[in-house]
């Protein structure tokens, strides 16, 4: 059984903060358990246990990766807490996983909440964009990484200093329907983003292509790449048909367009 000094708890928190940023920005993958395990081990003076636990936790999270924007149980806090308790309570790595997973699910819920709550920030950034205020945009780009750093610092520091029981109780105190509500809202929110895209791109003559793309994905379960390639085939067909059937409206520009087209052919061949 080890005791964690305040300095060690702070170092654990700092590493979790850095790893929390790296999970979303930078992606050098120092946030993976294989690295985090070694670092936590070194901080707590048990490098070998840390490295071995990190390796085991890495395998657990091997399949839990962000696919299509969906977030798995949080890998950073899983690696940090798992290694922490493996070292502190002498748990086997396989058992430490069991302790780590509920924490990482809770943290994932908090991150879902963060990604939902930060949507309004985009509209302040919109204003800076229209004003061409790139300095303000540069500053705003760091808001979320700083929040992530502080959040991960706290979420690793508290378990490190108070132990697992206190923190688990705190997590359970949040009404689960609130977490569920934010999760549901986060899932629905891309609809707002797509609606804004549609507001810019939509023309009724293009509606069939939206419908076809939707059907191909919803019924056909086609991947987005397949849908894009199919649409590209249709677009290419439409492009060539239009080019060949071009009826000149005013003589002068049409003539120059023809000349350029001939030039294009010669360039192409």
């Amino acid at each position: 059984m080890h005791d964690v000094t305040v300095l060690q708890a702070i170092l654990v928190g700092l590493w979790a903060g850095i790893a929390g940023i790296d999970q979303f920005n930078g992606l050098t993958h120092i946030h993976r358990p294989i690295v985090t395990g070694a670092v936590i081990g070194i901080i707590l003076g048990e490098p070998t246990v840390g490295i071995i636990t990190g390796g085991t936790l890495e395998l657990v999270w091997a399949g839990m990766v962000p696919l299509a924007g969906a977030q798995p149980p949080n890998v950073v806090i899983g690696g940090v807490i798992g290694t922490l308790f493996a070292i502190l309570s002498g748990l086997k790595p396989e058992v430490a996983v069991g302790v780590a997973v509920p924490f990482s699910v809770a943290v994932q819920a908090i991150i879902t909440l963060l990604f939902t709550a930060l949507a309004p920030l985009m509209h302040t950034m919109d204003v800076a964009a229209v004003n061409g205020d790139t300095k303000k945009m540069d500053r705003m780009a760091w808001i979320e990484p700083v929040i992530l750093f502080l959040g991960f610092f706290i979420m690793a520091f508290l378990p490190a200093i108070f132990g697992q029981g206190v923190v688990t109780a705190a997590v359970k105190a949040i009404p689960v329907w609130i977490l569920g509500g934010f999760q549901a809202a986060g899932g629905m929110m891309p609809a707002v983003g797509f609606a804004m895209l549609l507001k810019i791109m939509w023309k009724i003559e293009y509606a069939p292509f939206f419908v076809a793309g939707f059907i191909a994905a919803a019924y056909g379960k086609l991947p987005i790449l397949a849908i894009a390639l199919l649409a590209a085939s249709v677009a290419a067909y439409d492009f060539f048909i239009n080019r060949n059937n071009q009826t000149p409206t005013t003589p002068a520009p049409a003539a120059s367009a023809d000349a350029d087209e001939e030039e294009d052919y010669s360039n192409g061949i």
Partner: protein
Amino acid sequence: MASNEATIKEVDNLQIPDTYQDPSVNKVIDKSTLHKMVWRSLLLQSSFNYERMQGGGWTYSLIPGLKKIHTNKQDLGFALFDHMQFFNTHPFLVTFVQGVIIAMEENKENRSTIRGIKVALMGPLGGIGDALFWLTLLPITGGIGVSLSQQGNIFGPILFLLLFNAVHFGLLFWLMNYGYNTGTRAIASMRENTQKISRAATIIGLAVVGGLTATYINFSLNGTNGSFAIGKMKIDLQAGIIDKIMPALLPLAYTFFCYWMLKKGRSPLTLIGITLLIGLIGSFFGLFAWPAAIK
């Protein structure tokens, strides 16, 4: 605060013009600008949120190039605002999209063409990237590292980081140059057909948005609570009725509800508020699934 909100409202109703105040084309993008954009692409997800996903970080990553290209302040503003819209792709492949798009911006292509190409590229690359990196590169490099780690060898994590990042950063820089050169070449061959290219790009773009609507929006009712009973027959609303009518019906309906609200002049912020309310109220009555492990 009040004046700030007024500006947000103005911006929401802004129409992005398709052409530029200053349409002159100058070759201003050099290697160092491209490299700056690669480094900035590391912050692609710095403003990640569920409404625009990587839109903010994507715009941030383009700033060095856009500033050099659009010396006219209004052109710059509209270009930045245009890129602020929904964006999501794989962070390891994004530099290819950056390269293509910045080549098009440099050539002052119409905004609708740039937008169409951007949307057409981001979705497919996202899918390829997931398969290539999260499901291939990470397990391979992780596996090599773990085999050393399990013997308590410190070179496990070190080797993992070296291997992984050699591929990661090698790809980021190579794809940026490749994308920029591809973009430049493609533009040269499509000069006179911009109108038609724009049409083709919109066709692909809208098909991709249609596909994304069906797959990226997570909106379904909880099986146990989202049901009602008629006599002894229990009917599951989601699986028994909604999915029978049409898969992804709720995402589609909600997207068009949002579109309709935007058309009516409601602000996106109002829509975010409505979305949160639906989520919380629905969750309170058990219509949506709750996070499992902390029940």
